[in-house]
Every structure is written in structure tokens, then in C-alpha cells.
């Protein structure tokens, strides 16, 4: 039985750096294997859509414009992503990769959460189609 058994911690803390930090001014180094924003590489993609099928949170749409000409657009909903990396595992051609440094993903506008990957003209086609539909791009379901 002792009174104040944590006094040593209290005293040593006075001469030690605080464990807490003021976040926006000081940032911790992200670990090497951190899973953050998803990136897609068109080169090997076959448009099979397994990534979209296995995604537990509907964060991925693979929009096939022309299968033969391999014109694919990859739409990624950052806000829905749970960073489980199942898509990376499911992809048979290893087209997907999760960055380890883009972890500050908060945003004030929903537009920032919709990311398109693909050739520039293809993305523009998809965007134009979405705009002409009048519906917001996120609700159109294309696979």
C-alpha cells in the first residue's frame, strides 16, 4: 500500500517533452506501410472490375468506355474508402497501389472526394456524360 505511487512519472514528465503535439504545426512521420490514397495505373488494366466487385464500401467504379481499345476510367470515391486494400489484393494485374504519404484527405467540398484516373480525354468524356445526365456523377452506376 502506497500513496501517490505515480510520483516518479509526474516528476520525470516535468523535464521531458510532452507526449502530445499541436498537430497542424507538427506532423508525425507516416510509416512506410501506411495505407492512404489509392492510385491506379492504366497500363495493365483489363477492365475486369474485380476491384469494384470486392470493394466492401462501393468506393470504386471502373467505367468501361471501349473494352477493345482499352479505354477505361477509374473513379475512386475517397470518402467511402476504408483503406482495407482488398482491391490491391484482388487485382490480378497489379494495377492498384496505395500511397503511404497522402493521408491528409479531409476537405470542405465533396468534389475533392471524387477522383478520376485515366487518359485525359476519357475522363473528360465521362465527366461530360455525367454533366449531361444532370445527375451527380457519384450516383451513376457504370461497370
Amino acid at each position, binding site marked *: *500500500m*502506497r*500513496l*501517490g*505511487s*505515480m510520483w516518479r*512519472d*509526474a516528476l520525470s514528465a516535468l523535464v521531458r517533452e510532452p*507526449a502530445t503535439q499541436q498537430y497542424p504545426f507538427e506532423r508525425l512521420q507516416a*510509416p*512506410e*506501410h*501506411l*495505407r492512404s490514397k489509392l492510385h491506379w495505373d492504366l497500363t495493365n488494366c483489363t477492365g475486369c472490375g474485380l476491384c469494384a*466487385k*470486392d*470493394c*466492401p*464500401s462501393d468506393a470504386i467504379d471502373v467505367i468501361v468506355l471501349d473494352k477493345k481499345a482499352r479505354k477505361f476510367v477509374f473513379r475512386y470515391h475517397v470518402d467511402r474508402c*476504408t*483503406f*482495407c*486494400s*482488398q482491391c490491391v*489484393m*484482388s487485382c490480378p494485374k497489379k494495377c492498384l497501389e*496505395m500511397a*503511404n504519404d497522402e493521408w491528409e484527405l479531409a476537405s470542405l467540398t465533396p468534389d475533392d472526394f471524387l477522383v478520376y484516373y485515366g487518359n485525359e480525354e476519357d475522363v473528360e468524356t465521362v465527366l461530360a456524360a455525367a454533366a449531361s445526365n444532370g445527375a451527380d456523377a457519384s450516383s451513376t452506376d457504370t461497370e
Partner: protein
Amino acid sequence: MPTTPTQENDVFRIPIGPQHPALKEPGHFEFTVDGEVVTAATLRLGYVHRGIEKGTEGRNWIQSLYLLERVCGICSHVHATAYCLGVEKLAGVEAPPRAQAIRVLVAELERIHSHMLWLGVAAHEAGFDMLFMYSWRDRETVMNLLEGITGNRVNYSANQLGGVKCDIDGEQADDIRVGLDFLEGRIKHYLDVVSQDTMFLRRTRGIGVMTREDCERMGIVGPTARASGVELDLRVHAPYAAYPEHPVNLVTATAGDLEARFIVRVNELFESIRLIREILDDLPEGDLSVRVPRRIPAGETISRVEAPRGELFYYIKSNRSDMADRVKVRTPTLPNMASVLEIAVGHQLADIPMILTGIDPCFSCNDRMVAINDPSRGEQAWTWEQLRQYGIEYYR
């Protein structure tokens, strides 16, 4: 909070929850008190309507894994492990030894993280914020390790059907060893504090006593039961994954009060540390995963694992499609919760948060069966405006 006190027949009821500083998650208790002494208690759950069990019936086997991982935010890995082990059994495949070892390693790191989180919360409930702050500061070490291995701080998604996603290289192993050495020293200190500090013992010794018979009668599981001398630990009695190769020593105490629950949980941390070191020294070589078919053969299986809070029970039934026919989850908190209602009676109101925390409750774990949709309204989900309006009407 309605402002009129419930005073029928001179009965004074204190509501704890759904929003209350003692509860880190929503649940609703009503304690009838006589002065400061509790005379009766009732419980109402379901504030986290999430419909997870039903949700698995509309998702494929892979998607369900991530849904089930979110049954609990603290012990997410054991849920995924239980599910993966069950589905692998149904599919007739077995994850490679290296995957099983990594599963156990992450599970034990998670146990450290969960127990240290609990230690802090329990100390906070007792009004001992010093221990709270320090145990959470040190818990950061294990969080960082988990983040370094799996890439996520919570809901690690280390598992996939047929194995694991993340490997452990030499550098990571060294990081883990360094972290464990630091933690071991700190945990020794905490064991000292919870078993020696006079002021703290005044709040834990002899409070919330459950005898071994009580535990068996109420079906209590996990460290709560082991603190009353019940010898029940699935890692010992029904070893799974890599536990057959790395046996666990059973940690029990006999007093059955809050102090015993503290001591059992802190002692389990040493056991976890020992186990992780053992696995790191003896990590089998080989693949990380095997292929699991998208359609699982028909059948049913039961998968039980030892979560940080006790026995986690999964019943999985397949009807040979790419979706589960039925997934039943029995989390350890549900049987343990009943004990709170019973042992609270006769205690001081001030002890209630401690008794409640003593079982390490996880409300989200309980509330996973209901869909948020209200069929009578014919809508799939509520819009923000509807939800706001509902809130306003409800409290009018």
C-alpha cells in the same frame, strides 16, 4: 435529457446513457437509487443500429469480411480472424503457417492495445487521470507498431480470406522488439500501481465481487470470468491459428473483485508480450495466403476465438453461393453485460461506472443486428434533413 425526475412511488431513477460521460459508446442503463445506493438496474441496447448480421446476407464473402471487422473498433482483428478461420474451414483450405503466425501476432498486439485502452478508461472512471493519460500514452507505442505492420491504426485489415495481407520483415521485427521492451517496463509499473496505490485500491478492492459460481451461472466469459477463477481461455482450451505451436499460459485470479480484474488483464499483457517475442523468433517461412474460391461449398461451421474481452462466437452457414446464408456473431460483451445489472445492486452510485467498465464493455459489439431502414416508411435511408427533423420531434 427530460428535466422532470422520474419519481413514482418515491423511486428515484438515474439514467446513465445513451449519452453519458461514463459511457464511451451509447447504451442506456437505468439505476434506481436509494440515496447513493443502487437498488435496481435495467438495460436497453440498440443505439448503434448497424444491421451487420443482416448485411452479410447481401454481400459477397470478401465484402462481409470488412463489414464484420467493423463489429468492433477495438478488437476488429479477432472478428476478422474468426470469420476467416470459419470460411476457410468451410472452403476446405488452410492458411499457410506464416499467415497463421502473423494473425496471432497481430491479435496479441491488438490485445495489448485493447487492455491498455481499458486500463486507461477504467482509471478515468475511478477519477485517476494520471494512470489514464500514461497508459494511453504508452498504448501509442503499440498503435504505431500496428500501423507500421498493417498500414492502419484501427480496423487493420490484416486478414484476407486464405491468409494475411501484410508481411513482417526484419526491420519491423526489430521495431516490435524495441516497442515491447519499452512496454514491458511500463506494464510492470502499472501492475505495481493497480496493486499498490492506496487511493486507487479504495475504489477497486472488494468492489463488484463475483464468485466463481456467479460467473458460471451468468455465463461470464473472458478476463472478467478469469478474475473470478474460472479457467476459460480459448487460446488454451481450444487453440486455433498458430496457438497450438505457441501455447499460452492461463492467467487467473481468485478474488473476483475489480482489483482482480485489473490484475488479470495486466498480467495477460505480459503473456501477450512473451508470445509475440516467441513468434518473432520463430516465424515460419512461406506464402502469406492461399486462394479461396469465390463460391464457398455448402455447409455450416462454428468458429470461436478469444477476443480481448472473452470468447467470440461465430456461426457461419453457406448455401454454396458467393454470399453467406447466415452469420451469427455472439460477442463477449453480451453475456458479460448481464453481470453488470446483477452486481450493481447494493453498490454505491459512484462505483457503477467502475463496475460497468470492469467487464470492458463494447456496446457496438452488441448492436449489430438491425438495419437502419424503416420498412414502414418505404425508404432506404434517411436524409440528413429527415434525421434532423426526427431528432427535433423526438425531444419535443
